[in-house]
C-alpha cells in the first residue's frame, strides 16, 4: 500500500479542499486582485500533487484519470483559442474583448466585469492545472517503472520528514 500515515492522509484530505478552493478563488478573481489563470492553475495542480504524495499514485489516478487530464489540457488550450477566435466572429478582429465592448460591460470591480478576461483566466487555469498535473504524474510513473525505483520512496520520506 502506497502513501503515508493516517495523520498525514487525514490532514491532507482537508487541506486539499482548501487549496483547491483557493486556486479557484485566485482564478475567478484574477481580473480584480493579484493572481490569475496561471497562478491559480498551478495551485490546482499542486493540490493534486499533495494528494499524490499522501495517498500514493493509484489513489490519484482513480480521482483524476490520466486520459481525462490529457483531454482537459487540450480543452483548456482550445477554449482559450476559442475565446480569441470568437473575437473575430463577434468583434471583427482577432482577440477583441467583444463581451466587454458590446454585450456585457459589467460594473467595474465586480466579479462579472471585464468581458472575456475572466473566461480566458478560467481556460488558462484549466489548461495549466491539467498539464502540470500530467507532467508530474508522468515523471513519477517514469521513476517507478524505470531504473530509479527508490526515487519515489525517497521523495515520500523527504516529504514526511523522517529519514
Amino acid at each position: 500500500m502506497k502513501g503515508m500515515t493516517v495523520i498525514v492522509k487525514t490532514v491532507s484530505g482537508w487541506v486539499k479542499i482548501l487549496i483547491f478552493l483557493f486556486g479557484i478563488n485566485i482564478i475567478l478573481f484574477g481580473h480584480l486582485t493579484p493572481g490569475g489563470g496561471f497562478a491559480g492553475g498551478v495551485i490546482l495542480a499542486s493540490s493534486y500533487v499533495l494528494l499524490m504524495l499522501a495517498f500514493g499514485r493509484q489513489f490519484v489516478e482513480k480521482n483524476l484519470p490520466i486520459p481525462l487530464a490529457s483531454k482537459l489540457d487540450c480543452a483548456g488550450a482550445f477554449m482559450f483559442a476559442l475565446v480569441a477566435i470568437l473575437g473575430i466572429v463577434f468583434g471583427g478582429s482577432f482577440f477583441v474583448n467583444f463581451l466587454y465592448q458590446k454585450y456585457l460591460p459589467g460594473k467595474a470591480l465586480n466579479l462579472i466585469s471585464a468581458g472575456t478576461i475572466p473566461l480566458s483566466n478560467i481556460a488558462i487555469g484549466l489548461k495549466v492545472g491539467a498539464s502540470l498535473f500530467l507532467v508530474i504524474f508522468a515523471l513519477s510513473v517514469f521513476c517507478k517503472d524505470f531504473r530509479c525505483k527508490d526515487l519515489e520512496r525517497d521523495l515520500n520520506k523527504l516529504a514526511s520528514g523522517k529519514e
Partner: protein
Amino acid sequence: MSRMLPAFVIVPLVAAFVLPIFGTKGKSLATFLANLVTIFLLVLAVLSVGQSCVYEVGSWSLRVGIVLVLDGLSSLLLLAISVVSAAAMLFSVRYMERYTAKTKYLSLFMLMVAGMNGVAISGDIFNLFVFLEIASLASYALVGFGCEHEELEASFKYMVLGSVASTFILFGIALVYGNTASLNMAYVSKAIQSNGINPGLAFALALLIVGFGLKAALVPFHAWLPDAHSSAPAPISAMLSGILIKTIGIYALTRVLFNVFGVSLAVGWLLVVMGLLSMVAGAFLAIGQWDFKRLLAYSSISQIGYVVLGLGLGATLIAMGANPAWASLAILGGLFHLVNHAVYKSLLFLTSGSVEMATGTRQLKEMGGLAGKMPVTRAVCTIASASIAGVPPFAGFWSKLILVIAAIQAGFYWVAVILVSVSVCTLIMYLKVQRYVFLGELPDNLRKVRESKGSMLIAMVVLAGLCMVMGLLLLVPSLKTSVLDPAVNVLLEGLKYSDRVIQMCSSQGKLL
C-alpha cells in the same frame, strides 16, 4: 488578405490543441487533418505573395497592442515554411509509422509550424520571442522523439544551448525595453533613430546577435547542430535544417538588424566574417563525415554561411554608402539562397530518411549500389546534390552565381574566390554521397532493399520538381518582381520600415 493574417498562426495552433485528443484509434484521421492543415497553409502562403499589410490584434492601436506585419520578407519566408512543412508532413505519413505516439508527433509538428509562422509575421519583439520559444521547444522535443541514447543526448545539448540563447534574447529585449519603453518594432526603431544607439542598446544588439546566432548555428556557436539534426527523425531533420534555423535564426536576426537597429559597418563585417567562417568550416567538417545525416548537417552550416555572407555583404555595402544596386544584388543572392537551401536540403534529408528506412543504417561505408534498388530516391538525390553543389540548370547555381557577381562588383575578389572554392568542396562532398550510397557494389545484407512507397515518394518527387524549376523564380521577371524583389526591398529600406508600418496602420484605420 489582411483579415486572413492570424490564420497563419491560429489554424496550426488549434490543430495542435485538437490533435492529441484523437489518440491511437483516430490516428489516420489525425494524419489526414494535419496534412490538410499544412496544405491549407501552403495555399494561404501562395495567396499572400506580393501582399503587404498589417493586422492589429484585438483592434488595439499599434502603440498599445501587438501588430502582425506581412511584407515581402515575411511572405517569402512563409512560402518557404509552408512548402517544406507540407512536404515533410506528407513524408511523415508513412515514415513516422515506425514510432509510437504519432498524434503527439503531429501536434508537436503543428506547434513548430505555428511558432515559425508566428515569428515570420510578428511585428513586436517580445511576441517574436514567444513564438520563437514555441518553435524551439517543439524542436527540442522532436529531436528527442526517438528516446534512444543518441537522440536524448542530442536533444539535451540542443536544449541547453537553445535555452541559453533564449535567455540572451530575452535579456536583450529587456534592455531594449529599458531604453526605449516600447516593444513594437516600429516604435523601437523610431526611438533608436531619434536618440541614437547608446551603449545599452549596443549591448542589447550584441546579446541578440549571440542569441540568434546560437539559434542559427553560425560558426562559433554551431556545436549543437550536427548532433541535433542528425539524430532527429528524417522529416524533422528536414524541417530543422531546411527552415527552422533560418526562421528563428537568420530571419529574426536580419529583421532586428536591418529594420530595427539599422545596419552599421561593424555589424556588416561581423556577419561577413561569421558567414565565411561558417562556409569554410562547415564544408571542411562535412567532407570528413561518414554518417549520411551528419554530413548533411555539417553541410547545412556551410550553406547557412552563404546566406549570412550575402546578407552581411549587403549590410556592409549599405553602411559604406556604396551603390545600392550592389547591395541589393548581395541581399538578393542571400535570400534566394535561403529559399533554395530550404528546398534542396530538406529534400536531401528526406532522401536520407528514405535510404535509412530501407537499409537500416546511416553509415556511408555500409551502403552502396542502391541505384538499381531505389531508382526514384537515387534520381531525386542526384537532382538535390546537383542543386546544392551549384551545377548550372538547377536552383543552387543561380543563387551562388548572384553572390559571386555581387562580391566581384563590390570589389571583394577574395570573397568571390572563397565562395567558388567552397562550392567546389560542396561538389566533392556530394559526389562522395553519390559514390558511396548509390554506386559501387551492393552489400549482401542489402539485397532485399525495396524502394520506399506512397506518400514518401510523392513528397520527394514534388520537392525535386521544385528544385528544377526554382531557377525560374529568378529568371522570369514577373515572378522575380512579385516574390524576391519585395523581400529585398524590405531589407534595403532599412529603418524606413517603421514609417511604413505606422503609415500602413493609420491608412487601414481610416478604411475601417
